[in-house]
């Protein structure tokens, strides 16, 4: 399973056709993705491909202001246009008696949860906030009719920076009723004023122990950094096709979803539709990166219009609409400090973060800068004391929620920037400083001071592998030589940890989740012995149809080609939590593995009955039950399936059929880790950065399909490099999005992405039956700080301590020009 290939050549994983792979090798082989032919030939059906007879089209009028009162909306001219079927505003939603308010799926003790209506009524709070919808016979007609709606706004001052948003003089984005804060103290009767834009105050770790660590430290370093706002950029924009069937009162919604069951549950409440009458389907979904987890207004509005008009309705976001309204990621302003003793052993870490929430709380927004962030601040290191304080701030921007990595890139960026500064402070090599502070391999399970227990880990082999790939010592010598010539090479490390497959549900509940985090899997063996497995995850590019079939094939001993995977339909799958947080393999894969094992147990009973042997005497291998010591007395699982459905001769206490369901709830997260290293050359004259090398060593546990692992690592690194060097959502001071399209928001192109050398170590996860962790977010979590550390290393002769992302040539040039400056740039 590990790709134990050479250390210097690019060790790209070769794929195989499934027919070339022996049954016992299916799990762990780089089988070609079976979903690709349909996806790349256009045969696959995405939401926008769906056509229905008599279908109408919806378009959304969005606030052009970041913050304004709505004085009046005149829809009459739009309504009078030929082809316009209806124009609706918040008043119509209200008059229909629809709740129309989006819920928050994760609560914190201090959290303020403002109302988030699906159409803004008297006030808009970010550019893109929906004000009205038009339903028309044609898509372009609906768009044109938006221009005929006359909205009278009274513009208000806006605030977009999370730190400025919580200052006393910042414009209040939400009005809180009577006693919004509940913080009145009893004795002096003096209310502790919480600024109006504070969404929550949250902390983790031991403040006193951390203060002690700093008081006794021999060395300390600190840094102010920004983890900039990012726009997700799934290839397929959000879209919905909704159809209401008056005869059965069923509302069928096809939508771009990473979690159709969750969307059904939330939408049922938002629209007051009985859950069993709401059928949500995620057809092919063209990427999500988190942005299709959340419940947005638009999908609910499409469904509402379909019910109201009793016509099928389609809505597809334009690219600029996705930029304005897809939940953004990151948006942290952080001050962080590291304490060390004389020997360079880290003794404490203190982190103070302002996290932008945007104008409203998106579905899981409160969890991202808190439990998915603060709990990762120990990184791969044995740090005795950590304290982290996070202030969530409402701002006049698009809501911020999970985006590939979701809290963990922000945490590891802080940790790994501090580790570089710490190494410099104590005069150690950054790789050796990391090694010196690693949690030793014999110290697992390891409990960190930020409330998680790493179940497994072995960090040095990954670092060593990365150093070997770079030929590190020689590279450092070359760096010295080149500096003599006025060329600036930089080497940056990122020894990252990830926590994914968030679980168990009980813990999630204690932390504030309003949902469980188990996963369901159904394995149905048909009478012919072919298999369909249904999983509550909902892939949107990850290759589940391939990898889950590999899992079932191994567990049942059924040929890979005989297995079909079904996801993404609330009518076909019992329940499901969906695909995000790198959970699909560890939680969903484990659910179908568990169901497969239950199928084998039932099949064993039938086989034992028909072979007239004791169950314990049956061996199961390669899809065949045989009697120990009498291999001729055997039945294949296909034969058992046929007998299970014939039911002519099954044990008395056994029901016919061969199908099992599991709801798998893991005991813990899984903790992938690894070391990434970037080697860059920086030209201080032009500010340009060129990659020499990018080496990634990831430990994601057992690999079901190394090619898919490699693809996830590649994609994750590409997005991480994008954050480090190119991407950044910018609002002006009025809350207008200055980066409203790909013209102004730099998604990296192929030429911007380095060649990557990937390798792995394998430390199987102890908490699930497959020993798998997660890989979907690893690259995004690891890459930004590898690149930033490399750039800062290159600019060391210029005394540059830090440059904020995205590191543009202009920033490099300024940093190099301001030689001798200790200031951050």
């Amino acid at each position: 399973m590990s790709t134990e290939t050479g250390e210097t050549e690019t060790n790209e994983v070769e794929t195989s056709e499934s027919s070339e792979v022996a049954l016992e090798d299916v799990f762990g082989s780089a089988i070609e993705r079976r979903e690709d032919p349909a996806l790349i030939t256009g045969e696959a059906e995405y939401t926008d491909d769906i056509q229905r007879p008599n279908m109408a089209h919806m378009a959304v009028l969005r606030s052009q202001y970041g913050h304004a009162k709505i004085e009046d909306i005149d829809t009459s001219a739009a309504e009078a246009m030929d082809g316009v079927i209806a124009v609706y505003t918040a008043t119509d939603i209200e008059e229909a008696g629809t709740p129309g308010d989006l819920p928050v799926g994760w609560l914190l003790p201090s959290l303020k949860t403002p109302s988030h209506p699906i159409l803004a009524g008297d006030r808009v709070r970010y550019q893109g906030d929906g004000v009205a919808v038009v339903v028309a016979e044609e898509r372009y007609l609906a768009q044109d009719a938006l221009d005929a709606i006359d909205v009278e706004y009274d513009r208000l001052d806006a605030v977009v920076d999370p730190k400025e948003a919580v200052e006393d003089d910042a414009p209040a984005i939400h009005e809180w009723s009577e006693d919004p804060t509940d913080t009145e103290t009893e004795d002096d009767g003096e209310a502790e004023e919480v600024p109006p834009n504070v969404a929550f105050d949250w902390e983790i770790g031991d403040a006193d122990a951390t203060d002690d660590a700093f008081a006794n430290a021999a060395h300390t370093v600190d840094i102010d950094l920004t983890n900039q706002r990012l726009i997700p950029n799934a290839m397929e924009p959000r879209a919905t096709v909704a159809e209401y069937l008056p005869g059965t009162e069923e509302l069928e919604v096809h939508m771009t979803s990473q979690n159709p069951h969750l969307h059904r549950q939330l939408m049922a409440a938002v629209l007051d539709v009985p859950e069993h009458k709401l059928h949500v389907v995620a057809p092919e979904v063209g990427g999500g990166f988190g942005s299709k987890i959340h419940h947005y207004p638009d999908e609910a509005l499409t469904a509402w219009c379909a019910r109201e008009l009793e016509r099928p309705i389609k809505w597809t976001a334009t690219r600029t609409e996705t930029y304005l309204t897809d939940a953004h990621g990151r948006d942290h302003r952080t001050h962080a400090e590291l304490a060390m003793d004389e020997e360079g052993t880290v003794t404490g870490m203190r982190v103070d973060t302002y996290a932008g929430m945007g104008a409203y709380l998106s579905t899981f927004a409160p969890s991202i800068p808190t439990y998915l962030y603060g709990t990762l601040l120990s990184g791969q290191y044995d740090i005795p004391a950590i304290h982290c304080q996070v202030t969530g701030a409402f701002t006049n921007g698009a809501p911020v929620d999970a985006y590939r990595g979701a809290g963990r890139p922000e945490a590891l960026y802080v940790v790994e920037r501090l580790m570089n500064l710490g190494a410099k402070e104590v005069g150690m090599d950054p790789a050796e400083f990391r090694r010196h502070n690693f949690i030793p391999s014999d110290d697992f399970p390891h409990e960190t001071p930020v409330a998680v227990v790493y179940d497994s880990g072995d960090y040095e082999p990954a670092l060593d592998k990365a150093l070997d790939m770079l030929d590190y010592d020689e590279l450092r010598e070359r760096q010295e030589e080149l500096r003599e010539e006025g060329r600036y090479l930089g080497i940056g490390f990122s020894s990252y940890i990830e926590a994914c497959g968030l679980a168990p549900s009980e813990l999630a509940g204690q932390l504030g989740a309003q949902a469980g985090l188990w996963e369901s899997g159904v394995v149905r063996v048909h009478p012919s012995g072919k298999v369909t497995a249904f999983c509550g995850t909902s892939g949107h590019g990850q290759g589940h149809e391939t990898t889950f079939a590999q899992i079932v094939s191994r567990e049942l001993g059924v040929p890979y080609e005989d297995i079909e995977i079904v996801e993404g339909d609330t009518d076909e799958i019992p329940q499901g939590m969906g695909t995000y947080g790198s959970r699909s393999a560890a939680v969903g894969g484990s659910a179908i593995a568990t169901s497969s094992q239950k199928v084998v147990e039932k099949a064993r009973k039938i086989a034992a009955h028909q072979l007239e042997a004791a169950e314990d005497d049956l061996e199961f291998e390669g899809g065949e039950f045989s009697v120990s010591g009498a291999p001729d007395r055997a039945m294949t699982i296909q034969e058992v399936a046929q007998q299970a459905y014939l039911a002519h001769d099954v044990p008395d206490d056994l029901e016919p059929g061969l199908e099992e369901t599991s709801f798998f709830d893991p005991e813990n997260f899984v903790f992938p880790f690894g070391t990434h290293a970037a080697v860059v050359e920086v030209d201080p004259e032009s500010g340009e950065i060129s990659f020499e090398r990018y080496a990634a060593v990831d430990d994601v546990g057992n690999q079901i399909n190394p090619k898919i692992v490699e693809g996830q690592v590649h994609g994750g690194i590409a997005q991480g490099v994008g954050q480090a060097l190119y991407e950044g959502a910018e609002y002006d001071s009025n809350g207008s999005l200055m980066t409203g399209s790909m013209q102004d928001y730099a998604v990296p192109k192929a030429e911007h992405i380095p060649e990557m050398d990937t390798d792995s170590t394998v430390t199987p996860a102890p908490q699930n039956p497959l020993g798998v962790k997660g890989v979907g977010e690893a690259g995004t979590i690891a890459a930004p700080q590898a690149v930033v550390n490399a750039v800062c290393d290159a600019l060391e002769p210029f005394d540059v301590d830090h440059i904020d992302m995205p590191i543009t040539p202009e920033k490099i040039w300024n940093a190099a020009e301001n030689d001798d400056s200790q200031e951050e740039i």
Partner: protein
Amino acid sequence: MQFDGTFELDGTTREEVWLALSDPVLVRNALPGCEFLLEVDDESPDFDELRERAAETDDEEISMDPDVIAERSFEEGSHYAALMELGVGSVKPSFETVVTIAERDFPDTVATGEGDASNSSFEMESSMHLAETDDGVGVEWATQADVFGRIAQMGQRVINPVANRVVKRFFQRVQSQLDDFGAEEPETAADASTDPEAGLTGKIRDRMGI
């Protein structure tokens, strides 16, 4: 966002430029994409009515006669409504614009304005100072503008060239109008350069209350 610049108008005087830029008719003709420019009573006029009024009103002659212009000149504190069509990137919105002359004190003018189009809008404050130069007049202008909506999304990279194009065309047209009149009345202009109180300059100063 902030725009500023200086536009050189050659072979003319500050008074002539002041006269030209006091004339709503000349300004309307010089402004690219300006469909009408009408004085209104307050800051929230009915643009449907204004469109009708503009359609019914015969075009007034461009003139450099201080008597004519004094009658219709911009006045401090008064409001003007304009319909402006601007091509920005792929969109060509029509802005219903209201401008208030906040300050008018030779050689300085300050105006504030707001414009609304479907899904885009702007708010601005502009100042203009007329400075004497060797060859004529330097119009030093500056605008602080906030843009909103669809146009704002295009970013300053797209908006800057549009703003510069509008300003450049405007002053080119002003220059050519001044040139036309200069050609008609050469001796008056010559007088102006020798004796500031005589001829056209004197008349402008007198009639325009400079």
